[in-house]
């Protein structure tokens, strides 16, 4: 591919950040529109890549490889495949929307926009990087702007939340860095010289002990990022303190770094360890699903509620990933995109009432449905999408994950299915306390419904939710080949065979499901 | 007992005596004098080891420049600052003695092991430390370090001058601050 699409995709936002920095202080009003325009460019490139992507082929496409530092074998090695394609498009879509939603930012707006654009560069880079060190660099690049977003533009104890977020993630990524270096330096020679190139490192044979430790090192970084059960306490704080756009991106894309990392690196580089640890990590994920949902029910603060719901939904993704079945992993990957849309939408909505009432406490609201019918409609729509109502996008991922994981981990799947019930409980109870019933507080009386800008933000997300819910076929067809590539690799490397179906009765069914 | 041994013994004793007086002298001037004697005996040892140029340089710089500087500063600070004997830091004394002795013994033991000092070279005749040889070496292989020392010295000079400036600055700053804290500003100062 001579036209460096991916390089353009990743570096455009950084360039944009430069341009925004040049806007003179007295033209402050220009900053937001210019930034939205700038984020449109990577969106265009992302859509072009989506168009260019050859559906049936599971390998990496549009790869570019420019040698960066010869002795250590570090190179600008990027490529996109079925798994990262949709995440790239999701990131490109969410950015213009979240910037459009951050009109309530008044304090040094320019720096805000610059850090947003740098965040976009980091996120796009992470999903396309095929060189382990490049992946790590972008992984860290996303950290700094996020820290600024939470630390400067957050609400009350934002500094605590920002520091906690950074330290927690940095601890994880430090372990990962150690593992990356060990991998490159020790596994490198087997392939002729230390190399960080992911595609070549795949052929390195690692002893099962080494695989275990490396899996745990990578796993720790991704588990904190996902976040899996014991490591999740940074998420609610980060979400409650982050500004709206920060929360949308944090939940929409940043959390996916963890799950993407599990699928991209842990399953492929360490197949033996993955097969051995799969039930354990799936168990932690299931605990996360139920625990996240249970804790979400009684949260007094609506943002914390949605944050805990994210913990629960991402538990589904990890369960799907470590069910090690084609449907399970596909469900996980599509659920990453779906969760990005639904939870992103929820945070946008919460941001909108926060801009009006400046409080996140559910108790301060009541009877909003009469005062803001359109807003209530959108909220209910997104809440049901997030709770996995068929016909909307949340259902596709969760249904596939549940059916897929039942094939290999029946008990986990059954317990996880209970999460679906809890999801309905916490969402509807929150909806009831905020929207139904008479209007108790008089400040809620004079709240004004959504304006044109806000509607223009929500409509594209709602459209995508319905489209992915009703006709997910194009998305699923793009993911399937890459997932099959991973599973074939695991089957080749280990003696694990992926359960198709008909687990108990040992007859082979001629009529293969479509 | 060749002449060389005799000279060695005499000056060794001188060096040790000088060192001891430096450490134990109550008055800094006496310790300066002690150090001076040690330096001269070391210069003699340089000569004994055919390092004539280095001995000259040693005497010139060390004994000359450095010691005079010390004496100058001692005079500046005031010669009569006698120190009281009591040792304020607990365990300081015993630790110093133990570590000093330990180090001495160890170094001697290390001296024994051949891998520490390397093998003896063939006997090569006296004219080793002459200016020509030293010059060839210095401006040949060791040119880069030589240039580095130039840099070092300039920095040291600049540093010293800066410190000298600093000397006056505090006094001016202190004086300025007194003037500013006129009675009216008391509360604003504290509030800030």
């Amino acid at each position, binding site marked *: 591919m001579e036209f460096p699409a991916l390089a353009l995709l990743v570096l455009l936002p950084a360039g944009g950040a430069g341009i925004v920095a040049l806007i003179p202080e007295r033209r402050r009003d220009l900053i937001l529109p210019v930034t939205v325009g700038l984020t449109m460019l990577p969106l265009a490139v992302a859509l072009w890549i989506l168009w260019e992507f050859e559906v049936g082929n599971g390998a990496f496409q549009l790869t570019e490889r420019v040698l960066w530092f010869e002795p250590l074998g570090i190179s600008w090695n990027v490529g996109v495949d079925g798994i990262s394609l949709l995440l790239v498009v999701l990131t490109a879509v969410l950015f213009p929307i979240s910037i459009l939603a951050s009109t309530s930012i008044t304090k040094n707006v320019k720096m805000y926009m610059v850090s947003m654009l740098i965040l976009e560069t980091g996120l796009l880079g992470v999903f396309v990087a095929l060189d382990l060190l490049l992946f790590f660099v972008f992984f860290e690049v996303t950290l700094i702007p996020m820290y600024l977003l939470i630390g400067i533009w957050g609400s009350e104890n934002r500094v605590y939340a920002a520091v906690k977020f950074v330290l927690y993630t940095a601890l994880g990524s430090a372990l990962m860095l150690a593992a990356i270096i060990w991998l490159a330096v020790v596994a490198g020679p087997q392939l002729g010289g230390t190399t960080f190139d992911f595609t070549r490192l795949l052929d390195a044979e690692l002893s099962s002990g080494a695989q275990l430790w490396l899996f745990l090192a990578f796993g720790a970084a991704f588990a904190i990022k996902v976040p899996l059960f014991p490591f999740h306490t940074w998420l609610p704080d980060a979400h409650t303190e982050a500004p709206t756009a920060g929360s949308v991106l944090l939940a929409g894309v940043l959390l996916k770094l963890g799950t993407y990392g599990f699928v991209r690196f842990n399953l492929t580089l360490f197949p033996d360890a993955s097969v051995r640890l799969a039930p354990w990590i799936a168990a932690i994920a299931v605990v996360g699903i139920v625990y996240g949902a249970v804790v979400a029910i009684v949260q007094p603060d609506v943002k914390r509620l949605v944050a805990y719901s994210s913990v629960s939904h991402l538990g589904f993704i990890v369960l799907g990933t470590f069910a090690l079945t084609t449907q399970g992993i596909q469900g996980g990957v599509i659920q990453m995109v779906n969760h990005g849309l639904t939870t992103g939408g929820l945070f946008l909505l919460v941001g909108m009432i926060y801009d009006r009432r400046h409080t996140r406490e559910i108790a301060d609201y009541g009877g909003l449905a009469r005062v803001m019918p359109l807003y209530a409609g959108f909220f209910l729509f997104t809440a049901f999408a997030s709770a996995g109502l068929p016909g909307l996008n949340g259902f596709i991922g969760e249904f596939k994950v549940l059916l897929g994981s039942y094939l290999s981990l029946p008990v986990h799947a059954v317990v996880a299915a209970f999460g679906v019930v809890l999801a309905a409980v916490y969402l509807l109870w929150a909806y009831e306390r905020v929207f139904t019933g008479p209007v108790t507080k008089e400040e809620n009386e004079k709240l004004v419904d959504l304006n044109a800008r806000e509607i223009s933000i929500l409509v594209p997300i709602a459209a995508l939710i319905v489209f992915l819910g009703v006709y997910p076929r194009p998305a699923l067809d793009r993911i399937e080949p890459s997932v099959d590539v991973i599973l074939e690799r695991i089957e080749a490397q280990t003696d694990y065979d992926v359960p198709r179906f008909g687990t108990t009765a040992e007859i082979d069914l001629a009529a293969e499901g479509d | 007992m*060749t002449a060389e041994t005799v000279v060695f013994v005499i000056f060794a004793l001188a060096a040790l005596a000088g060192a001891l007086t430096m450490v134990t002298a109550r008055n800094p001037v006496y310790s300066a004098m002690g150090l001076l004697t040690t330096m001269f005996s070391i210069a003699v040892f*340089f000569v004994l080891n055919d390092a004539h140029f280095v001995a000259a340089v040693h005497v010139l710089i060390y004994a000359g420049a450095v010691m005079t500087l010390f004496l100058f500063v001692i005079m500046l600070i005031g010669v009569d600052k006698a120190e009281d004997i009591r040792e304020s830091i607990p365990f300081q004394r015993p630790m110093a003695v133990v570590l000093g002795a330990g180090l001495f013994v160890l170094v001697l033991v290390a001296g024994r092991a051949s891998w520490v000092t390397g093998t003896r070279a063939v006997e090569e005749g006296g004219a080793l430390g002459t200016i020509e040889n030293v010059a060839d070496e210095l401006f040949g292989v060791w040119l880069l370090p030589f240039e580095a020392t130039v840099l070092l010295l300039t920095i040291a000079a600049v540093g010293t001058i800066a410190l000298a400036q600093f000397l006056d600055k505090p006094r001016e700053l202190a004086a300025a601050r007194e003037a500013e804290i006129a009675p009216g500003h008391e509360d604003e100062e504290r509030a800030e």
Partner: protein
Amino acid sequence: MTVTAGWYMALAASLFTIGAAGLLLRRNALVMFMSIELMLNSVNLTFVAAGRELGVLEGQLSVLFVMVVAAAEVTVGLAIIVAVFRNRATASVDELTGLRG
């Protein structure tokens, strides 16, 4: 009984130890400074003795370099001591504990 390099080494070691002891025992900044000079000189002696022993000139050259360093150090050190003395009117090291942990 010719004078071998060992003797010089022994002498240098003793001088070094005396310097170290002086550094630890004395409280006056100047005396401590002088002990450091003494330690440097004993190192020079070892250099020269070893140089002669191994028949190479590097010994003497390193002495030169040590001297340069010592000179630079003395100038700056003394300037600091004088500056400190000017502010605190004391040369005793134990009172100067500003840079505590």
